[in-house]
C-alpha cells in the first residue's frame, strides 16, 4: 500500500520535474525570460517607449556597421518612440580585437562618450578589425575624443569591464544569438539590416497602438 502510494507520488514528482524543465527550456528558446540590465551609457531613448530594441553587436563585424547606420536613421525618425539597449556580442573566433573594442567602448562610456567612441570604432573598422598586431586605433580614437587614455587602459584591463562584456555574451548565447547583428524588437528576433528594416515598417502601427 505504502509502496504503491510512494510510487504514485514519485511518478507525480517526475512528471512535475519534467514539465517544469521543459517549460523553462522552451521559455529560454522563445526568449520569454527578462533581458539582463544594460549600463546606462548603452541605453538610448525614453524608458516607457513603445518599442524596446535590444541589439547584440560586434564592433568588428561589417554587417553591424551597416545596421548601426540603419538604426541611427530609425532613431532619428521615430525619436521618443524607441528605446535602444546596446549589448556586446564580440565574435572572438572571427575578430581578434572585438573583445578589446567592446571593453574600450564601455570604458569610454564610463567617461560619458560611449556613443561617440562606438561610432568611431565602426567608421574605422577596416583599420583595426582584422589587424594582425595590436592596433593603435583604440588609443587614437580615445585621444580624438579627448578621453583619459591611461584611465581607459586601466578600466579595459579590469575584471569588471571583462565581466560586463562576458555577461552580454552569455546572455546572447542563452537566447540563441549566433550571428551579428541580432535584434530583439519587443521580444521579436531579427537578424541583420534586412530583417531590421522589415520590422521598422511596423513601427508606425506599434506607435499608433500606444
Amino acid at each position, binding site marked *: 500500500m505504502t509502496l504503491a502510494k510512494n510510487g504514485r*507520488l514519485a511518478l*507525480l514528482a517526475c512528471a512535475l*520535474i519534467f514539465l517544469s524543465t521543459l517549460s523553462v527550456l522552451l521559455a529560454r528558446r522563445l526568449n520569454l*525570460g527578462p533581458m*539582463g540590465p544594460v549600463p546606462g551609457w548603452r541605453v538610448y531613448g525614453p524608458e516607457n517607449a513603445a518599442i524596446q530594441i535590444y541589439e547584440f553587436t560586434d564592433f568588428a563585424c561589417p554587417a553591424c556597421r551597416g545596421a548601426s547606420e540603419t538604426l541611427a536613421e530609425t532613431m532619428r525618425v521615430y525619436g521618443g518612440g524607441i528605446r535602444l539597449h546596446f549589448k556586446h556580442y564580440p565574435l572572438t573566433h572571427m575578430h581578434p580585437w572585438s573583445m578589446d573594442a567592446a571593453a574600450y567602448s564601455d570604458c569610454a562610456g564610463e567617461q560619458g562618450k560611449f556613443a561617440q567612441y562606438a561610432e568611431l570604432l565602426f567608421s574605422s573598422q577596416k583599420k583595426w578589425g582584422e589587424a594582425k598586431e595590436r592596433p593603435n586605433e583604440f588609443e587614437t580614437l580615445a585621444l580624438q575624443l579627448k578621453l583619459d587614455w591611461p584611465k581607459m587602459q586601466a578600466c579595459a584591463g579590469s575584471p569588471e569591464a571583462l*565581466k560586463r562584456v562576458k555577461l552580454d555574451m552569455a546572455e546572447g548565447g542563452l537566447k540563441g544569438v549566433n550571428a551579428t547583428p541580432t535584434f530583439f524588437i519587443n521580444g521579436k528576433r531579427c537578424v541583420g539590416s534586412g530583417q531590421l528594416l522589415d520590422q521598422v515598417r511596423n513601427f508606425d502601427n506599434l506607435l499608433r497602438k500606444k
Partner: protein
Amino acid sequence: MNGQTNIKNLTGLLARLIVGGVFVYSGAIKALAPAEEFAYAIESYKVIGPGLSLLAAHAVPWIELYTGLLLACGIFTRSSVFFTAAMLAFFELMLGQAWLRDLPITSCGCFGSAGSNSITEEFLQNLALLALLWPAASYRRLSADGSEGQYSSSLLPLSGDETVRTDD
C-alpha cells in the same frame, strides 16, 4: 474543533505555497538568465572559486525550482520541507559570513538580476521563510501526500486530527 483544524490545514497549505512559490520564482528567474550572472554573485561571497561558482550556478536554480514545486504541491512534503530548510539554512550561513566579513556584495544573487535586497533584508526574509516551514511541515492534510492513500477522500479534514502522518 473541525473549523480550527481547517484553519490549521489551510495555514499549512498557504505556508507551502508561499515558500514553494518563492523557490519556484527564484529558481526559474535564474534558470532563464545566463549562469555566469549568478556565478558572479556566488563568487562575491568569497567561499568558492570561479570554477565551482559556475558549476553551482548551473545547478542551484534547477534544484530551487524542483524543490519549490514539490513543496508547493505537497509531494513528499516532509522531505521537501527538510530539504528546503537545509537550503535556507545554508543561504543564511552564506549571508551571515558575508555580513560578518563585511564583503562588498552588490547583488546577493537571490533573485537573479531582476532585483536585489540588502544582505540584512535577505537574511530576515529567509528567516521568515524558515518560520513558515513549521506550519508547512505540521499541517499537511491539504497536500498531494495527504490526499493520497488513506486520505484519498479527505482533501478537507473530516476529523479533529490536527496533524496528518504520512510515510514519506
